[in-house]
C-alpha cells in the first residue's frame, strides 16, 4: 500500500554562509508515515531549537532534506510537477504560530479566503464561494457576519488563528501541519482553536501534525507523540503512555516542568535534578541530552542510543533501556497509534 506521506531517513543540516563545515544538524535520520485510511493527530514536541519547524518546512516542501527523502503518495515531493504539484499544494496545508503574519493588513480578511478559492478553483460562482467561506468559518466556531468584511487588526489573535484553520479547511486538505498554533494566543482562548483542529480531524478525516512545546495541549489533542531534542527522537509512542509514564530522562524533565493547573500536583515533586544546558559539546557523538542528563554514564557518549521498545506503544532512545529490543528508526510509526 502506498502511504499518504512518508519521511524516509530524513536529515537536515543547515550550513551557515561560508562555514559550511560548522553546520547545524536540525533533524537527524527522522522517519515517519501518515496513512490516508487512518488519519491521526501526531504531536511533535520539544523545546525551541529541537527541530520542530524544520520538520514543518520539510513537510511542506519549503526546504529540501540534506539526506533521505520525503514522499507524497509514493512520489518524492521534490519531483512533483504540474497537476501533481497543485494537488500536493492543496492537500497539504499549514497553520503557523503567528496568527497575524499571514494576513495582509491592507485587505479585509475575506482576501485570505478568496485567494485559495480562486487559485484552486474551488467554487463555481461568487455565491458558491461565499457559501464555502461561511461554511468554513462556521465549522471553526466563528460567526461569518462577525468576520467577513473586517480588517485583520479588528480581530483578536484567537479569531485570526481560527480563520487560518478555516482557510485550511476550505481546501479540504489531507494533511495539516500546525506549527505552535496556540503559543501566541491567550491560554483561555486556546481551547477553542484546539477544538477546531480536532474537528478537522474528526469530521473531515484530516491528519494533523501538531507541533508544540506545550505537552499539556499535546496530551489533549493528539493520539501519538514524538519528543525531539536537538534534532533527534528521544521518545515516542502513544500520548497517554508517554505523558503519564515517560521513560526517557528528557521527557521526564519536560513533563516534570509543566506547570499543571492543579494544586495537589506540585512542580518538581519527583525531585528530578534540573541542569541548565552548559553549552559544552558533551554528547556530540552519543546521546544529545548527555550535557543535561542527571543519569549520564560514559556509555552514553559513544554512539547515539537506538530506539528501545520500552512498551508496546513506546520507544526511548536511552541506554538505561538497553535491555529492551531495538526498533529500527525507519519503523518509528509502528509504535504510534492512530
Amino acid at each position, binding site marked *: 500500500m502506498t502511504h499518504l506521506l512518508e519521511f524516509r531517513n530524513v536529515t537536515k543540516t543547515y550550513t551557515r554562509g561560508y562555514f559550511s563545515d560548522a553546520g547545524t544538524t536540525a533533524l537527524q535520520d527522522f522517519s515517519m508515515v501518515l496513512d490516508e485510511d487512518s488519519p491521526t493527530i501526531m504531536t511533535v514536541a520539544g523545546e525551541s531549537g529541537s527541530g520542530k519547524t524544520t520538520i514543518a518546512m520539510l513537510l511542506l516542501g519549503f526546504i529540501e532534506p540534506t539526506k533521505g527523502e520525503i514522499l507524497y503518495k509514493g512520489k518524492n515531493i521534490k519531483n512533483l510537477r504540474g497537476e501533481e504539484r497543485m494537488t500536493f499544494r492543496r492537500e497539504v496545508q499549514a497553520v503557523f504560530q503567528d496568527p497575524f503574519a499571514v494576513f495582509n493588513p491592507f485587505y479585509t480578511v475575506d482576501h485570505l479566503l478568496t485567494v485559495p478559492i480562486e487559485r484552486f478553483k474551488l467554487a463555481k460562482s461568487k455565491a458558491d464561494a461565499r457559501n464555502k467561506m461561511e461554511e468554513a468559518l462556521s465549522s471553526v466556531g466563528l460567526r461569518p457576519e462577525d468576520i467577513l468584511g473586517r480588517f485583520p487588526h479588528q480581530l483578536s489573535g484567537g479569531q485570526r488563528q481560527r480563520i487560518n484553520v478555516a482557510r485550511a479547511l476550505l481546501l479540504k486538505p489531507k494533511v495539516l501541519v500546525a506549527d505552535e498554533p496556540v503559543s501566541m494566543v*491567550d491560554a483561555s482562548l486556546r481551547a477553542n482553536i484546539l477544538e477546531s483542529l*480536532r474537528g478537522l480531524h474528526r469530521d473531515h478525516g484530516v491528519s494533523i501534525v501538531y507541533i508544540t512545546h506545550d*505537552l499539556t495541549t499535546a496530551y489533549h489533542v493528539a493520539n501519538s507523540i514524538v519528543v525531539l531534542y536537538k534534532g533527534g527522537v528521544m521518545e515516542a509512542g502513544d500520548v497517554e503512555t508517554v505523558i503519564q509514564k515517560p521513560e526517557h530522562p528528557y521527557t521526564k524533565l519536560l513533563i516534570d516542568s509543566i506547570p499543571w*493547573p492543579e494544586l495537589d500536583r506540585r512542580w518538581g515533586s519527583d525531585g528530578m535534578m*534540573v541542569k*541548565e544546558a552548559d553549552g559544552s559539546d558533551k554528547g556530540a557523538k552519543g546521546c544529545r541530552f548527555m550535557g543535561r542528563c542527571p543519569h549520564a554514564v560514559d556509555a552514553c557518549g559513544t554512539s547515539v542510543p537506538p530506539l528501545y521498545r520500552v512498551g508496546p506503544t513506546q520507544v526511548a532512545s536511552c541506554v538505561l533501556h538497553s535491555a529492551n529490543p531495538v526498533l529500527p528508526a525507519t519503523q518509528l510509526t509502528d509504535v504510534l497509534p492512530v
Partner: protein
Amino acid sequence: MSAILQVRDLQVSYYTDLGRATALNRVNLDLQAGEKLGLVGESGSGKSTMALAMMRMIKAPGRIESGSVDVDGVDLMKLSEEEMRLARLSRIAYIPQGAMNSLNPVMRIGAQMVDAIRAHVPTMSKEDMIARAKDSLESVDLKRNVFDMYAHELSGGMKQRVCIAIGILLKPKVIIADEPTSALDVVTQRQVMETIDRVQKEIGTAVILIGHDMGLMAQFVDKVAVMYAGRLTEVSTVRDMFTTPMHPYAQALIKSLPNLKNKGVFQGIPGLAPSLLRIPSGCAFHPRCTQAMDRCKTTIPEVQDHNGRLVACHLYTEGA
C-alpha cells in the same frame, strides 16, 4: 498585619483618536509583606496598565485619573518626580513584559547594574556597587562573571535572570514581574520561577506575577486576582480560586484549563473580550455570562467582601 501595598481607586484612561478608553477602573488591592499575588486576565484586560500605573510610568496618551498607591506607608502618587524616581527599584520594582530583550546590547551587564545602583545611592563606593551587583547575580543563580558579559552572550533564561537580579538590587518591598517567562521553554520557565521563589523568600519581598497561564499561578502564588475589562472581578486565595471560583468569569477560566483528568475536553470561554471603547453596560462580562440576570445589564456590580474573598458579581448581592 498591615498591608505592605495598598492600592485604592486606581483609574487610568488612554485618550485615543476614537475616544477615551478606561483601561483601569477604580481598582483596589492589598498585599501583605512577602505575599505572592497572581494578576491574571486575557490580553488587553489592563494588567500591564495596572503595573505601569503603580510605578507611575503611564505615558501619553494614557493618564492616571485618580487613586493612591501606598507602599510601606508612603503614597507614591504624592511623591515628587525625583522622589518617585528613587522609589522605583528601592521601594517597588517592575520587570516589564519582554524586559529580557531590552537589555542594552552594547553595554556589559555589570555596567548596566552599576548604573542602576548609582542612580539611587550615588554615595556608594565603586567597589561596593560592583560587589552588590555580583551578589545579586549570584542570588539568581548566575555566575559572578556574567557581570562582564554582554546580553547576546546569554541564553533567554539567563537574560531573564539578569532582569530579576536588577529588580532585586535595592531589595524593594514589592516586585512586579510582567509575564516574566512567557517567552521561555518550560524547563527554563520552571528554573526561573524557582529562582524568583527563592529570592522572594530570602529578601521577604511581596511579588505580583502578571500572566495568563493559570498553571503557573497554581504552582507559584498565594492569591489570585482576576481582571476583566479593566476591573478586578475576583481576588481569592489560590486554593479558593481553583476549587470554588465565585465569579462566573473566574469559573469559566478555571473550567477552560487542561489537566490530566479531562483529556479531550475543551471548554473555551464563548464570545469575545470587549473593546475598551465599547464596554458593555452594567457588568462588562454580561454578554458572555451564562448566569446573567436583568440587572447585570444595567448595574455595575461593586466589589464586595465575602469572607475574605473579593467578588464583583450580582449573584452574590441582595436583589436591587
